[in-house]
């Protein structure tokens, strides 16, 4: 058979074959049919050895042409089929994305702890150390070393749970002041806070017999009441918002002199006057003052060299304010429906 006829035959046969192809897999079979060991194109050049150089050249060229032609045709078909097949596959995998997800359950963090961590972060950023102190304290640390000797009338305002005549449940985190001074053997400057639980014999809608406080203490040379005010202004802004203002009122605590009570602009009405602030626009949140020389002395610091300030504030109220919790008891009831509400990151702008 003439070479040309052979090629024509191949062309025809390919044309027919391609009509029957329905999948990319069939294209593979087709490739085998033409390019396999006994394939029509392979056999075109099977008797090349017997031919002259010129014939070889000619047939080589022709067969190469047909090779390329067939390859291209099959490949094109294969490509087209593959695309179609992929599209069919994708279509068949279409799902209803509005069906419910396979959720990962989040736990929650208690609002009380969230407040503590915020307070800690703020003061750590100002160079304070966060220290811990025992809740089961001595009368000495909780009162006597804070200039509240036995029989002092200031004890009345803090009804105490005694364990025995010597030990009690601390009524204030101020007890850690006494410890921090004693434990600092070098008598070097102190900058610390101590958040924690305190206990008083008092239980009603606004008081819990157990509640949270944070105590702060700075001892250094040349510390003034103005420094205290500056510090608390920053603190109030961080905890209660940038527009919070701070007001000092003279007061009395046995362990500070001068002593001040610290009001902030009412968180509910921003100072306009409402039922929460009894129309005054201010809410008392903190007690503070310059560390009393007797307290410094009992802690081993010479009051003629050292000065310092101390402050203490309740934590529950900050939690109640931030999350708008109306009743302090909710913090301690542990209703799952309450707890689960606190299951995400606090918004940043509330912290700054």
């Amino acid at each position, binding site marked *: 058979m003439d070479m040309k006829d052979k090629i024509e035959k191949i062309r025809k046969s390919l044309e027919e074959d391609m009509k029957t192809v329905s999948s990319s897999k069939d294209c593979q079979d087709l490739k085998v049919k033409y390019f396999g060991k006994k394939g029509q194109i392979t056999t075109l050049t099977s008797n090349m050895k017997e031919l002259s150089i010129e014939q070889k050249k000619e047939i080589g060229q022709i067969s190469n042409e047909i090779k390329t032609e067939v390859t291209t045709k099959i490949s094109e078909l294969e490509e087209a089929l593959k695309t179609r097949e992929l599209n069919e596959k994708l279509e068949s995998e279409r799902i209803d994305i509005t069906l419910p997800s396979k959720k*990962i359950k989040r*736990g*929650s963090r208690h609002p009380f702890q969230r407040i503590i961590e915020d307070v800690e972060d703020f003061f750590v950023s100002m160079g304070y150390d966060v220290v811990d102190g025992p809740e089961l304290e001595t009368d000495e640390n909780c009162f006597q070393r804070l200039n509240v000797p036995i029989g002092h*009338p200031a004890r009345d305002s803090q009804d105490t749970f005694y364990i025995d005549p010597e030990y009690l449940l601390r009524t204030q985190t101020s007890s850690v002041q006494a410890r921090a001074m004693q434990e600092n053997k070098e008598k070097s400057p102190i900058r610390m806070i101590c958040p924690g639980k305190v206990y008083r014999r008092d239980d009603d809608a606004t008081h819990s017999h157990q509640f949270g406080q944070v105590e702060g203490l700075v001892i250094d040379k040349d510390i003034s*009441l103005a420094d205290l005010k500056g510090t608390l202004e920053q603190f109030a802004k961080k905890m209660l918002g940038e527009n919070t203002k701070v007001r000092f009122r003279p007061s009395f605590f046995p362990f500070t002199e*001068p002593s001040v009570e610290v009001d902030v602009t009412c968180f509910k009405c921003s100072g306009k006057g409402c039922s929460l602030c009894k129309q005054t626009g201010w809410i008392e949140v903190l007690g503070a003052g310059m560390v009393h020389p007797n307290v410094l002395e009992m802690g081993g610091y010479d009051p003629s060299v050292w000065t310092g300030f101390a402050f203490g504030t309740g934590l529950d109220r900050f939690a109640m304010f931030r999350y708008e919790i109306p009743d302090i008891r909710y913090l301690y009831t542990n209703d799952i429906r309450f707890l689960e509400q606190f299951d995400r990151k606090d918004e940043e702008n509330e912290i700054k």
Partner: protein
Amino acid sequence: MKLSRKFVSDYISIDVDTKTLADDMTRIGNEYDSCEKLIPTSQLTIGEVIECVDHPDSDHLHVCKVNIGSQILQIVCGAPNVRTGLKVIVATDGTILPGGVIKKGVIRGQESNGMLCAMSELGLEHKFLTEKDINGIHELPNNAPIGEDAVKFMELDDEVIDFELTSNRGDLLSILGMAYEIGALYGKKVKEMEISFKEETNSIEKNFKLDIKTENCPLFLVKKVTDVSIKESPDFIKNRLIASGIRPINNVVDISNYVMLETGQPLHYYDADRLGNKLIVRMAEENEKLTTLDSQERVLSDSDIVIATEKEAVGLAGVMGGITTEIEEDTKNIIIESAIFHPTCIRKTSKKVLRSEASNRFEKGLDPKRTYMAMMRSCHLLEKYADAKILSGMVEYKNIEMKEKQVVVSLDKINKVLGITLSKEEVVDILKRLQFETKVDGKEFTITVPTRRIDISIPEDIIEEVGRIYGIDRIEGKAMVLPVVPGTVDKTKRYIRNKLSDLGLNETLSYALTPEEDEFQFTTAKEIEKVKVLDPMSEDRNTLRYSLIPSLLSIFKYNKARNYKDICIYEIGKSFYKKDGIYHEEEKLAILMTGIYQLGLKKEMVDFYVIKGILEELLESLGYKNRYSIVATTDIRELHPGQSAKIIVNNTEIGVIGKVHPSVIKESVFVLELNLDLLFNFRVKKMQYKEISKYPSVLKDLAFVVKKNITAEEIHSVIKKAGGKLLKKIEVFDVYEGENVGRDEKSIAFSLTFEDPTRTLNDEEVMAVFNQIIETVEKKLSAQVRDK
């Protein structure tokens, strides 16, 4: 302390309204609770009943014509004492009374244009009123001017500020103290108190003996007055007592209270004829009895001070007088006591017996000068309002320092502590306002502190006074300049909280005080001595918790009662116990899990392995991998004996884990508790890069059929030993019990990883080790290999 504006105005002139005064006082450190009119009504008018006839349709009402100056009103009145010619208090249409607004109306067919008022209708507390005041309308005196303001006429147009004073300012528990404070506030002088009186020729001194037997009484003054006439007090005294919260009784008793209010010095009057000629001050005997003025028999102890005759105690010093020497209607002669007792003693006694106006003042400490002043003032008023004759002389015991304290403070120190820059002149001006005598020497002030200010004794006290009067709120906040030192905080507990919350657990906060009967301890320790409070508020909260698990169980019960059954919670808190007489406080973490636990895509009923997984995840993420073990135990009373274990880290028991015993709770509840203080004692190794093997590892799986009582851990340790150093990892991936194995058998499948960091392992050597493992396990544990 209730401050009557009228009362204090005797000693200081006030130019501002009462609300402003209250707010200004707050600014200098004296908070108030309320600021109100004594009679909280709108205008009440004086009227005269010009006609009074019985109501035609009532057996007790009267129809009256009342002249109120501007008009004559018909008013229906039910009071039994209403009659023609009576001067009355009239509330006209629209008047606001504490009980409501008065409106015109028709009462049983008769028009009524207002109300005739009883004192009880004006808003005074009943304790200040007599029977007459409550049952009938008030009868004004004949000279009452018709049409004028009735409240003003009765001098009840007073305003009262109720101060909540700080415990150091005992001096403000007096009108005089308040006057000095207001004087400092507005830069005004306090007026002198009238204390003059005429004395009789005969003296008390020869006839009266005083015997002070205790050092708890440093000052005791006695004077005698005779021939008093007991009657009702003048209105101004009664009104001021009422405004101050004290019930008027009779002129003599009222004067003693009036003087106490003015000076802050409590006085006691004895009926001289019932008392005799001697007073002894001594400590009470244990169980000594005394009937006080309120007719109660008090049993005393040796920490109480008593005033006594030779025969018996006649008064509980500083707290309340005895009934036997009380001033009565027929009292003629009076012994006046003005004294100081030790504040701590009085505080102790009054806490036990009774808090009184007197004890409140004694407790805070008194100014000895006022002790004298009150005596004189008392004589002055008794002479003036009770016709008393005052015997000359005074029996006096004095063992007290009366010199004024001197305090030296420099301008520098004041400015340094306050953080402001006051001039010398400004400081001098403030001290002058406070009426502190001051000597200035260069930049140093020497201040003579008046004895009334017993709260002031050190330079810092003066600095506070200066700051207070200057205006502590005028101090501007400064940014502290301190060395830049990083602050420190231990974040491990925070990490734990975040970890557990990420694992789907909710953080709780519960009370450390728990009921005593909550004897559950969740520990392998046999006996725990719990810590109890001496004076609990309730039986529910009398014991400090040793374990946090009972708190979590309560939370579980609370929520279960509200139909929440899938509960995964945790808490970190302090735990307390006593051992060998020493209190211990330790930080613990407790976890409770029950119902469905969902992590990621899996929802599972909580069982031992779920909570064990939480524990392992926590310990390993904290860095304790390969350092802990979980060892089965039957020693924890409150846990299921077949599903509980001790948690061991570095050979130390640091906690427990398991299913709560069905006798404690019937539901399937799993708990664990870790002692964090113990755990944190074990330092975690540094996180450090380890060379990654360049050579491939070989994985082999196999399963053993063993008797049920063989634990996975036992097989694990046999495999580990037999596997040698090529065996890198052993993991259990399946456990099977059922048809395909014997009844008392189970199948456990392991996945083993072999690796050599220095070379590629060949098949033969891996198979050699693998076969060695099979052989050893089969032999040692009577196991049967199942699949290879």
